[in-house]
Protein backbone atom coordinates (compact mmCIF):
# COMPACT_ATOMS: atom_id res chain seq x y z
CA UNK A 1 0.00 0.00 0.00
CA UNK A 2 2.88 2.32 0.78
CA UNK A 3 4.15 1.74 -2.72
CA UNK A 4 0.78 2.53 -4.22
CA UNK A 5 0.48 5.74 -2.17
CA UNK A 6 3.94 6.70 -3.32
CA UNK A 7 2.94 6.08 -6.92
CA UNK A 8 -0.22 8.17 -6.50
CA UNK A 9 1.77 11.00 -5.03
CA UNK A 10 4.20 10.89 -7.93
CA UNK A 11 1.50 10.94 -10.57
CA UNK A 12 -0.25 13.78 -8.75
CA UNK A 13 3.00 15.70 -8.60
CA UNK A 14 3.52 15.14 -12.31
CA UNK A 15 0.14 16.73 -12.92
CA UNK A 16 -1.50 13.47 -13.91
CA UNK A 17 -4.64 12.56 -12.06
CA UNK A 18 -4.22 9.06 -10.67
CA UNK A 19 -6.72 6.72 -12.22
CA UNK A 20 -9.44 5.66 -9.83
CA UNK A 21 -11.13 2.52 -10.90
CA UNK A 22 -13.63 0.17 -9.41
CA UNK A 23 -15.17 -3.09 -10.49
CA UNK A 24 -17.55 -1.10 -12.70
CA UNK A 25 -14.78 0.95 -14.28
CA UNK A 26 -14.66 4.61 -13.26
CA UNK A 27 -15.36 5.06 -9.56
CA UNK A 28 -18.66 6.76 -8.77
CA UNK A 29 -19.60 8.84 -5.76
CA UNK A 30 -23.28 9.70 -5.39
CA UNK A 31 -24.19 12.72 -3.24
CA UNK A 32 -27.73 13.04 -1.88
CA UNK A 33 -28.77 16.62 -1.09
CA UNK A 34 -27.66 19.87 -2.73
CA UNK A 35 -27.28 22.17 0.27
CA UNK A 36 -24.13 23.59 1.83
CA UNK A 37 -22.89 20.07 2.68
CA UNK A 38 -23.85 18.09 -0.41
CA UNK A 39 -23.17 20.73 -3.07
CA UNK A 40 -19.77 21.48 -1.54
CA UNK A 41 -18.92 17.78 -1.35
CA UNK A 42 -19.86 17.20 -5.00
CA UNK A 43 -17.73 20.13 -6.21
CA UNK A 44 -14.80 19.27 -3.97
CA UNK A 45 -14.79 15.62 -5.06
CA UNK A 46 -14.64 16.60 -8.72
CA UNK A 47 -11.98 19.24 -8.06
CA UNK A 48 -9.79 16.84 -6.08
CA UNK A 49 -10.22 13.90 -8.42
CA UNK A 50 -11.45 14.86 -11.92
CA UNK A 51 -11.51 11.17 -12.94
CA UNK A 52 -14.36 10.48 -10.52
CA UNK A 53 -17.93 10.15 -11.70
CA UNK A 54 -19.81 12.43 -9.27
CA UNK A 55 -23.62 12.51 -9.29
CA UNK A 56 -25.53 15.02 -7.16
CA UNK A 57 -29.13 14.03 -6.46
CA UNK A 58 -31.24 17.10 -5.72
CA UNK A 59 -34.90 17.57 -6.72
CA UNK A 60 -35.05 21.37 -6.47
CA UNK A 61 -33.60 23.35 -9.38
CA UNK A 62 -33.06 26.29 -7.02
CA UNK A 63 -31.56 26.19 -3.53
CA UNK A 64 -32.88 28.70 -0.99
CA UNK A 65 -30.36 29.45 1.74
CA UNK A 66 -31.40 29.49 5.39
CA UNK A 67 -28.40 31.62 6.41
CA UNK A 68 -29.46 35.27 6.04
CA UNK A 69 -33.12 34.30 5.60
CA UNK A 70 -33.92 36.04 8.92
CA UNK A 71 -32.88 39.24 7.13
CA UNK A 72 -35.64 38.56 4.59
CA UNK A 73 -38.16 38.56 7.45
CA UNK A 74 -36.87 41.99 8.48
CA UNK A 75 -37.14 43.33 4.93
CA UNK A 76 -33.36 43.72 4.74
CA UNK A 77 -33.11 41.27 1.83
CA UNK A 78 -35.40 39.73 -0.77
CA UNK A 79 -35.90 35.98 -1.05
CA UNK A 80 -34.28 35.85 -4.52
CA UNK A 81 -31.00 37.03 -2.93
CA UNK A 82 -31.11 33.77 -0.98
CA UNK A 83 -31.42 31.62 -4.08
CA UNK A 84 -28.75 29.71 -5.96
CA UNK A 85 -28.87 27.43 -8.98
CA UNK A 86 -26.74 24.40 -9.79
CA UNK A 87 -25.27 25.68 -13.07
CA UNK A 88 -21.84 26.27 -11.50
CA UNK A 89 -21.81 22.73 -10.14
CA UNK A 90 -22.80 21.28 -13.51
CA UNK A 91 -20.10 23.41 -15.12
CA UNK A 92 -17.56 21.89 -12.74
CA UNK A 93 -18.30 18.46 -14.22
CA UNK A 94 -20.77 17.15 -11.65
CA UNK A 95 -23.79 15.30 -13.02
CA UNK A 96 -26.91 16.73 -11.40
CA UNK A 97 -29.87 14.35 -11.20
CA UNK A 98 -32.86 16.64 -10.70
CA UNK A 99 -34.94 14.15 -8.78
CA UNK A 100 -35.15 12.79 -5.26
CA UNK A 101 -33.65 9.66 -3.80
CA UNK A 102 -36.37 7.30 -2.65
CA UNK A 103 -34.29 4.40 -1.33
CA UNK A 104 -30.73 3.50 -0.46
CA UNK A 105 -29.59 -0.12 -0.42
CA UNK A 106 -26.40 -0.09 1.63
CA UNK A 107 -25.75 -3.77 0.92
CA UNK A 108 -26.09 -3.53 -2.86
CA UNK A 109 -24.56 0.02 -2.84
CA UNK A 110 -27.37 1.50 -4.91
CA UNK A 111 -29.61 4.56 -4.73
CA UNK A 112 -33.10 4.35 -6.21
CA UNK A 113 -34.39 7.62 -7.66
CA UNK A 114 -37.94 8.94 -7.91
CA UNK A 115 -37.58 8.98 -11.70
CA UNK A 116 -37.17 5.19 -11.67
CA UNK A 117 -33.43 5.08 -12.26
CA UNK A 118 -31.05 3.26 -9.99
CA UNK A 119 -27.50 4.48 -9.37
CA UNK A 120 -24.68 2.20 -8.25
CA UNK A 121 -22.04 3.86 -6.08
CA UNK A 122 -18.61 3.11 -4.67
CA UNK A 123 -19.14 5.69 -1.93
CA UNK A 124 -22.33 7.53 -1.01
CA UNK A 125 -22.43 10.98 0.63
CA UNK A 126 -25.69 11.84 2.35
CA UNK A 127 -26.33 15.46 3.23
CA UNK A 128 -30.13 15.42 3.49
CA UNK A 129 -30.48 18.25 5.99
CA UNK A 130 -33.43 18.13 8.35
CA UNK A 131 -37.01 17.05 8.33
CA UNK A 132 -39.59 18.06 10.88
CA UNK A 133 -40.90 15.63 13.45
CA UNK A 134 -44.54 16.45 12.64
CA UNK A 135 -46.88 16.04 15.62
CA UNK A 136 -43.97 15.61 18.05
CA UNK A 137 -45.38 18.95 19.19
CA UNK A 138 -49.11 18.08 19.43
CA UNK A 139 -51.15 20.06 16.91
CA UNK A 140 -48.19 20.97 14.72
CA UNK A 141 -48.36 19.18 11.39
CA UNK A 142 -47.83 20.18 7.76
CA UNK A 143 -51.24 21.85 7.58
CA UNK A 144 -50.55 23.81 10.79
CA UNK A 145 -47.34 25.14 9.23
CA UNK A 146 -49.47 27.04 6.70
CA UNK A 147 -51.06 28.97 9.61
CA UNK A 148 -48.11 29.03 12.00
CA UNK A 149 -45.06 28.98 9.72
CA UNK A 150 -41.81 27.39 10.85
CA UNK A 151 -39.73 29.18 8.19
CA UNK A 152 -36.93 26.76 9.22
CA UNK A 153 -36.50 25.60 5.64
CA UNK A 154 -36.14 28.81 3.69
CA UNK A 155 -38.37 29.65 0.74
CA UNK A 156 -42.17 29.81 0.63
CA UNK A 157 -42.32 29.53 4.44
CA UNK A 158 -40.01 32.54 4.84
CA UNK A 159 -42.18 34.59 2.49
CA UNK A 160 -45.34 33.47 4.32
CA UNK A 161 -44.02 34.51 7.72
CA UNK A 162 -42.88 37.88 6.36
CA UNK A 163 -46.31 38.46 4.80
CA UNK A 164 -48.00 37.65 8.12
CA UNK A 165 -45.73 40.08 9.99
CA UNK A 166 -46.44 42.82 7.46
CA UNK A 167 -50.20 42.24 7.69
CA UNK A 168 -50.21 42.33 11.49
CA UNK A 169 -51.71 45.35 13.29
CA UNK A 170 -49.33 47.52 15.28
CA UNK A 171 -49.52 46.28 18.85
CA UNK A 172 -49.88 42.64 17.83
CA UNK A 173 -48.11 39.88 19.73
CA UNK A 174 -45.57 37.81 17.80
CA UNK A 175 -44.92 34.44 19.47
CA UNK A 176 -41.86 32.40 18.56
CA UNK A 177 -41.46 28.84 19.81
CA UNK A 178 -37.91 27.44 19.97
CA UNK A 179 -37.22 23.69 20.24
CA UNK A 180 -35.02 21.67 22.57
CA UNK A 181 -31.52 20.66 21.40
CA UNK A 182 -30.38 19.45 18.96
CA UNK A 183 -31.76 21.41 16.02
CA UNK A 184 -30.60 23.23 12.88
CA UNK A 185 -28.75 26.51 13.55
CA UNK A 186 -28.60 26.84 17.36
CA UNK A 187 -28.43 30.69 17.39
CA UNK A 188 -31.06 30.97 14.65
CA UNK A 189 -34.21 31.46 16.76
CA UNK A 190 -32.50 34.27 18.69
CA UNK A 191 -31.20 36.02 15.57
CA UNK A 192 -34.74 35.74 14.25
CA UNK A 193 -36.23 37.27 17.41
CA UNK A 194 -33.66 40.07 17.14
CA UNK A 195 -34.35 40.89 13.50
CA UNK A 196 -38.13 40.70 13.89
CA UNK A 197 -37.76 43.15 16.82
CA UNK A 198 -35.53 45.33 14.63
CA UNK A 199 -38.31 45.49 12.05
CA UNK A 200 -41.13 45.88 14.60
CA UNK A 201 -39.32 48.78 16.24
CA UNK A 202 -39.42 50.67 12.93
CA UNK A 203 -42.83 49.68 11.57
CA UNK A 204 -44.98 48.37 14.47
CA UNK A 205 -43.40 49.85 17.60
CA UNK A 206 -46.32 48.97 19.90
CA UNK A 207 -45.84 45.25 19.16
CA UNK A 208 -43.97 42.73 21.27
CA UNK A 209 -42.27 39.39 20.72
CA UNK A 210 -42.69 36.50 23.14
CA UNK A 211 -40.01 33.82 22.80
CA UNK A 212 -41.17 30.55 24.33
CA UNK A 213 -38.19 28.25 24.75
CA UNK A 214 -37.87 24.53 25.50
CA UNK A 215 -34.36 25.22 26.86
CA UNK A 216 -32.85 27.13 29.77
CA UNK A 217 -29.78 28.28 27.85
CA UNK A 218 -28.93 29.08 24.23
CA UNK A 219 -26.06 29.91 21.89
CA UNK A 220 -24.47 33.39 22.31
CA UNK A 221 -27.05 33.96 25.06
CA UNK A 222 -25.45 36.88 26.93
CA UNK A 223 -24.53 38.63 23.69
CA UNK A 224 -28.10 38.37 22.43
CA UNK A 225 -29.64 39.40 25.73
CA UNK A 226 -27.30 42.38 26.07
CA UNK A 227 -28.17 43.40 22.52
CA UNK A 228 -31.90 43.10 23.19
CA UNK A 229 -31.62 45.27 26.31
CA UNK A 230 -29.58 47.84 24.42
CA UNK A 231 -31.55 47.97 21.17
CA UNK A 232 -35.06 46.73 21.91
CA UNK A 233 -35.80 47.42 25.60
CA UNK A 234 -39.04 45.76 26.69
CA UNK A 235 -39.83 44.34 23.24
CA UNK A 236 -38.52 40.76 23.54
CA UNK A 237 -39.61 38.55 26.43
CA UNK A 238 -37.71 35.26 26.63
CA UNK A 239 -39.41 32.52 28.67
CA UNK A 240 -37.00 29.66 29.44
CA UNK A 241 -37.98 26.05 30.12
CA UNK A 242 -37.74 26.45 33.89
CA UNK A 243 -40.23 29.31 33.79
CA UNK A 244 -42.78 27.45 31.70
CA UNK A 245 -41.37 28.22 28.26
CA UNK A 246 -41.86 24.78 26.76
CA UNK A 247 -44.75 24.74 24.29
CA UNK A 248 -46.72 21.52 24.81
CA UNK A 249 -49.39 21.97 22.11
CA UNK A 250 -50.54 24.42 19.47
CA UNK A 251 -53.88 25.19 17.87
CA UNK A 252 -53.46 26.59 14.37
CA UNK A 253 -57.16 27.51 14.07
CA UNK A 254 -56.91 30.05 16.91
CA UNK A 255 -53.14 30.74 16.73
CA UNK A 256 -52.73 29.68 20.34
CA UNK A 257 -49.67 28.10 21.92
CA UNK A 258 -50.07 26.24 25.20
CA UNK A 259 -47.21 25.84 27.65
CA UNK A 260 -47.05 23.98 30.96
CA UNK A 261 -48.10 27.22 32.70
CA UNK A 262 -50.20 29.30 30.30
CA UNK A 263 -51.95 29.74 26.96
CA UNK A 264 -50.78 32.47 24.61
CA UNK A 265 -52.82 33.83 21.72
CA UNK A 266 -50.62 35.16 18.96
CA UNK A 267 -51.22 37.65 16.17
CA UNK A 268 -48.36 35.93 14.34
CA UNK A 269 -47.00 32.56 15.49
CA UNK A 270 -43.63 31.19 14.35
CA UNK A 271 -43.27 27.60 15.51
CA UNK A 272 -39.81 26.09 15.08
CA UNK A 273 -40.66 22.43 15.61
CA UNK A 274 -38.59 19.45 16.78
CA UNK A 275 -36.38 18.06 14.01
CA UNK A 276 -34.58 14.97 12.78
CA UNK A 277 -32.29 14.02 9.92
CA UNK A 278 -33.85 14.20 6.44
CA UNK A 279 -36.18 11.22 5.91
CA UNK A 280 -33.92 9.35 3.48
CA UNK A 281 -31.39 8.90 6.31
CA UNK A 282 -33.75 6.70 8.30
CA UNK A 283 -34.67 4.74 5.15
CA UNK A 284 -30.97 4.15 4.43
CA UNK A 285 -30.44 2.86 7.96
CA UNK A 286 -27.92 5.56 8.90
CA UNK A 287 -30.14 7.34 11.50
CA UNK A 288 -30.23 6.01 15.05
CA UNK A 289 -33.06 6.14 17.60
CA UNK A 290 -32.44 9.86 18.18
CA UNK A 291 -33.38 10.51 14.55
CA UNK A 292 -29.85 11.76 13.76
CA UNK A 293 -26.88 10.00 12.12
CA UNK A 294 -23.83 8.82 14.06
CA UNK A 295 -20.54 9.04 12.11
CA UNK A 296 -16.85 8.46 12.78
CA UNK A 297 -14.82 11.68 13.04
CA UNK A 298 -12.24 11.31 10.23
CA UNK A 299 -14.17 10.67 6.99
CA UNK A 300 -17.66 11.06 8.54
CA UNK A 301 -18.56 7.54 7.51
CA UNK A 302 -21.70 6.18 9.12
CA UNK A 303 -21.08 3.95 12.13
CA UNK A 304 -24.24 2.03 11.15
CA UNK A 305 -23.71 1.39 7.41
CA UNK A 306 -20.38 1.08 5.54
CA UNK A 307 -19.45 3.24 2.52
CA UNK A 308 -22.05 5.88 3.41
CA UNK A 309 -20.80 9.26 4.66
CA UNK A 310 -23.20 11.68 6.37
CA UNK A 311 -22.61 15.44 6.53
CA UNK A 312 -24.10 18.60 7.91
CA UNK A 313 -27.27 19.05 9.94
CA UNK A 314 -28.30 15.37 9.63
CA UNK A 315 -25.13 14.06 11.28
CA UNK A 316 -24.11 13.79 14.92
CA UNK A 317 -20.80 15.66 14.73
CA UNK A 318 -19.71 15.61 18.36
CA UNK A 319 -19.15 19.18 19.53
CA UNK A 320 -19.79 20.79 16.13
CA UNK A 321 -23.09 22.65 15.79
CA UNK A 322 -25.51 22.25 12.90
CA UNK A 323 -24.48 25.22 10.75
CA UNK A 324 -23.89 25.96 7.07
CA UNK A 325 -20.23 26.76 7.76
CA UNK A 326 -19.84 23.40 9.52
CA UNK A 327 -21.54 21.49 6.68
CA UNK A 328 -19.30 23.18 4.10
CA UNK A 329 -16.15 22.49 6.15
CA UNK A 330 -17.13 18.88 6.82
CA UNK A 331 -17.87 18.38 3.11
CA UNK A 332 -14.35 19.42 2.08
CA UNK A 333 -12.80 17.09 4.68
CA UNK A 334 -15.09 14.26 3.60
CA UNK A 335 -14.31 14.74 -0.10
CA UNK A 336 -10.55 14.56 0.51
CA UNK A 337 -11.05 11.50 2.72
CA UNK A 338 -13.12 9.73 0.05
CA UNK A 339 -10.46 10.42 -2.59
CA UNK A 340 -7.90 8.83 -0.25
CA UNK A 341 -10.13 5.85 0.55
CA UNK A 342 -10.84 5.15 -3.12
CA UNK A 343 -7.08 5.20 -3.76
CA UNK A 344 -6.57 2.66 -0.98
CA UNK A 345 -4.97 5.16 1.38
CA UNK A 346 -5.87 6.06 4.96
CA UNK A 347 -7.40 9.55 5.28
CA UNK A 348 -5.53 12.00 7.50
CA UNK A 349 -6.99 13.06 10.84
CA UNK A 350 -8.75 16.36 10.12
CA UNK A 351 -9.03 19.65 11.94
CA UNK A 352 -12.39 21.28 11.23
CA UNK A 353 -13.42 24.87 11.96
CA UNK A 354 -16.86 26.30 12.59
CA UNK A 355 -17.63 30.01 12.41
CA UNK A 356 -21.09 31.44 12.81
CA UNK A 357 -22.22 35.05 12.72
CA UNK A 358 -25.61 36.27 13.92
CA UNK A 359 -27.19 39.67 13.38
CA UNK A 360 -28.79 41.38 16.38
CA UNK A 361 -29.59 44.33 14.08
CA UNK A 362 -28.72 45.20 10.47
CA UNK A 363 -25.39 46.71 11.56
CA UNK A 364 -24.82 44.73 14.77
CA UNK A 365 -23.14 41.33 14.41
CA UNK A 366 -21.92 38.76 16.93
CA UNK A 367 -20.04 35.52 16.36
CA UNK A 368 -19.08 32.14 17.70
CA UNK A 369 -16.20 29.99 16.48
CA UNK A 370 -14.80 26.57 17.33
CA UNK A 371 -11.95 24.32 16.20
CA UNK A 372 -12.48 20.56 16.33
CA UNK A 373 -10.45 17.37 15.95
CA UNK A 374 -11.16 13.67 16.34
CA UNK A 375 -10.85 12.52 19.94
CA UNK A 376 -12.26 9.35 21.48
CA UNK A 377 -14.36 8.60 18.42
CA UNK A 378 -15.95 11.99 17.87
CA UNK A 379 -15.18 15.55 16.80
CA UNK A 380 -14.20 17.41 19.94
CA UNK A 381 -13.44 21.06 20.72
CA UNK A 382 -9.73 21.82 20.84
CA UNK A 383 -9.26 23.23 24.35
CA UNK A 384 -8.38 26.91 24.51
CA UNK A 385 -9.68 27.67 21.03
CA UNK A 386 -13.06 29.02 19.96
CA UNK A 387 -15.65 31.01 21.84
CA UNK A 388 -17.91 33.99 21.29
CA UNK A 389 -17.41 37.70 20.60
CA UNK A 390 -16.36 39.67 23.69
CA UNK A 391 -19.21 41.04 25.81
CA UNK A 392 -17.56 44.46 25.79
CA UNK A 393 -17.34 45.58 22.18
CA UNK A 394 -14.67 48.16 21.44
CA UNK A 395 -13.69 49.91 18.23
CA UNK A 396 -16.88 49.28 16.30
CA UNK A 397 -16.58 45.50 16.62
CA UNK A 398 -20.35 44.84 16.30
CA UNK A 399 -20.54 46.79 13.05
CA UNK A 400 -17.41 45.06 11.79
CA UNK A 401 -18.85 41.61 12.56
CA UNK A 402 -22.04 42.51 10.64
CA UNK A 403 -19.82 43.29 7.63
CA UNK A 404 -17.88 40.05 8.11
CA UNK A 405 -21.18 38.16 8.21
CA UNK A 406 -22.20 39.59 4.82
CA UNK A 407 -18.77 38.79 3.34
CA UNK A 408 -18.89 35.27 4.72
CA UNK A 409 -22.24 34.70 3.00
CA UNK A 410 -20.89 35.85 -0.37
CA UNK A 411 -17.80 33.66 -0.01
CA UNK A 412 -19.47 30.47 1.15
CA UNK A 413 -22.24 30.63 -1.43
CA UNK A 414 -19.62 31.25 -4.15
CA UNK A 415 -17.58 28.28 -2.96
CA UNK A 416 -20.62 26.02 -2.64
CA UNK A 417 -22.62 26.93 -5.76
CA UNK A 418 -20.06 28.72 -7.96
Amino acid sequence: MATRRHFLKLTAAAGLAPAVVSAQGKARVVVIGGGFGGATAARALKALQPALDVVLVEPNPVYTSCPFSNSVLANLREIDQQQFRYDGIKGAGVTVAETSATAVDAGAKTVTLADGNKLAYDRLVMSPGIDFAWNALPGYDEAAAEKMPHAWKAGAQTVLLRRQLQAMDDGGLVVLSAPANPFRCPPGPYERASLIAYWLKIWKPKSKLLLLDSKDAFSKQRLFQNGWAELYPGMIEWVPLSQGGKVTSVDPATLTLTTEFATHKAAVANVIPPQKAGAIAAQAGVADRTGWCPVEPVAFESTLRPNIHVLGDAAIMGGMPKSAFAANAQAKVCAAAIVSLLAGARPQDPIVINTCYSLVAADYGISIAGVYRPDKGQLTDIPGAGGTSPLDAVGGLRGQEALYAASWFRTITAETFG
Partner: protein
Amino acid sequence: MHRALLPGLASMILLAGPATAADAPPGASSCTGCHAPKTVSDTVIPHIAGRKAEDIVTVMRAYRSGAWPSSVMGRIAKGFDDHQTEAIAVWFAAQPE
Protein backbone atom coordinates in the same frame (compact mmCIF):
# COMPACT_ATOMS: atom_id res chain seq x y z
CA MET B 1 11.82 33.77 15.70
CA HIS B 2 11.70 34.17 11.96
CA ARG B 3 15.21 32.92 11.45
CA ALA B 4 14.29 29.70 13.23
CA LEU B 5 11.10 29.36 11.24
CA LEU B 6 12.28 29.96 7.69
CA PRO B 7 14.56 26.94 7.19
CA GLY B 8 11.65 24.82 8.39
CA LEU B 9 9.33 26.39 5.85
CA ALA B 10 11.82 25.95 3.03
CA SER B 11 12.27 22.26 3.74
CA MET B 12 8.52 21.77 3.94
CA ILE B 13 8.08 23.41 0.54
CA LEU B 14 10.69 21.06 -0.94
CA LEU B 15 9.10 18.01 0.63
CA ALA B 16 5.57 18.96 -0.33
CA GLY B 17 6.33 19.52 -4.00
CA PRO B 18 3.55 21.07 -6.04
CA ALA B 19 0.60 21.35 -3.69
CA THR B 20 -2.64 19.77 -4.76
CA ALA B 21 -5.92 20.29 -3.00
CA ALA B 22 -5.86 16.68 -1.82
CA ASP B 23 -2.64 17.38 0.03
CA ALA B 24 -4.16 20.21 2.08
CA PRO B 25 -2.91 19.95 5.67
CA PRO B 26 -5.41 19.51 8.52
CA GLY B 27 -7.55 22.61 8.98
CA ALA B 28 -6.68 24.28 5.67
CA SER B 29 -9.85 23.35 3.82
CA SER B 30 -12.04 25.08 6.44
CA CYS B 31 -10.41 28.48 5.80
CA THR B 32 -11.99 28.97 2.37
CA GLY B 33 -15.46 29.11 3.92
CA CYS B 34 -14.58 32.75 4.69
CA HIS B 35 -11.36 33.48 2.76
CA ALA B 36 -12.39 33.62 -0.88
CA PRO B 37 -10.25 33.46 -4.00
CA LYS B 38 -9.75 36.80 -5.77
CA THR B 39 -12.70 36.06 -8.05
CA VAL B 40 -14.92 37.02 -5.10
CA SER B 41 -14.16 40.73 -4.90
CA ASP B 42 -17.03 41.99 -2.78
CA THR B 43 -15.62 40.96 0.60
CA VAL B 44 -13.99 42.66 3.59
CA ILE B 45 -12.32 39.36 4.58
CA PRO B 46 -8.74 39.20 3.19
CA HIS B 47 -7.74 36.88 0.36
CA ILE B 48 -5.04 34.50 1.62
CA ALA B 49 -4.27 32.26 -1.37
CA GLY B 50 -0.90 33.15 -2.86
CA ARG B 51 0.26 35.17 0.16
CA LYS B 52 3.78 34.60 1.45
CA ALA B 53 3.86 31.72 3.94
CA GLU B 54 5.96 33.63 6.45
CA ASP B 55 3.49 36.53 6.38
CA ILE B 56 0.57 34.19 7.10
CA VAL B 57 2.52 32.58 9.96
CA THR B 58 3.40 35.98 11.45
CA VAL B 59 -0.21 37.14 11.40
CA MET B 60 -1.55 33.86 12.79
CA ARG B 61 0.94 34.04 15.69
CA ALA B 62 -0.11 37.61 16.40
CA TYR B 63 -3.78 36.57 16.38
CA ARG B 64 -3.02 33.65 18.67
CA SER B 65 -1.15 35.77 21.22
CA GLY B 66 -3.72 38.56 21.03
CA ALA B 67 -1.04 41.04 19.90
CA TRP B 68 -3.15 41.69 16.81
CA PRO B 69 -6.83 42.41 17.55
CA SER B 70 -9.41 40.39 15.62
CA SER B 71 -12.95 39.12 15.73
CA VAL B 72 -12.91 35.36 15.10
CA MET B 73 -9.27 34.86 14.05
CA GLY B 74 -7.82 35.02 17.56
CA ARG B 75 -10.25 32.32 18.65
CA ILE B 76 -9.47 30.16 15.60
CA ALA B 77 -5.67 30.62 15.66
CA LYS B 78 -5.58 29.21 19.20
CA GLY B 79 -6.69 25.85 17.76
CA PHE B 80 -3.42 25.39 15.83
CA ASP B 81 0.15 24.87 17.05
CA ASP B 82 3.21 26.30 15.26
CA HIS B 83 3.75 23.23 13.12
CA GLN B 84 0.10 23.06 11.99
CA THR B 85 0.02 26.79 11.31
CA GLU B 86 3.18 26.60 9.21
CA ALA B 87 1.80 23.72 7.16
CA ILE B 88 -1.39 25.67 6.41
CA ALA B 89 0.60 28.80 5.54
CA VAL B 90 2.84 26.90 3.11
CA TRP B 91 -0.17 25.33 1.48
CA PHE B 92 -2.03 28.63 0.98
CA ALA B 93 1.14 30.28 -0.32
CA ALA B 94 1.21 27.65 -3.07
CA GLN B 95 -2.43 28.13 -4.07
CA PRO B 96 -3.37 30.28 -7.07
CA GLU B 97 -4.80 33.67 -6.12
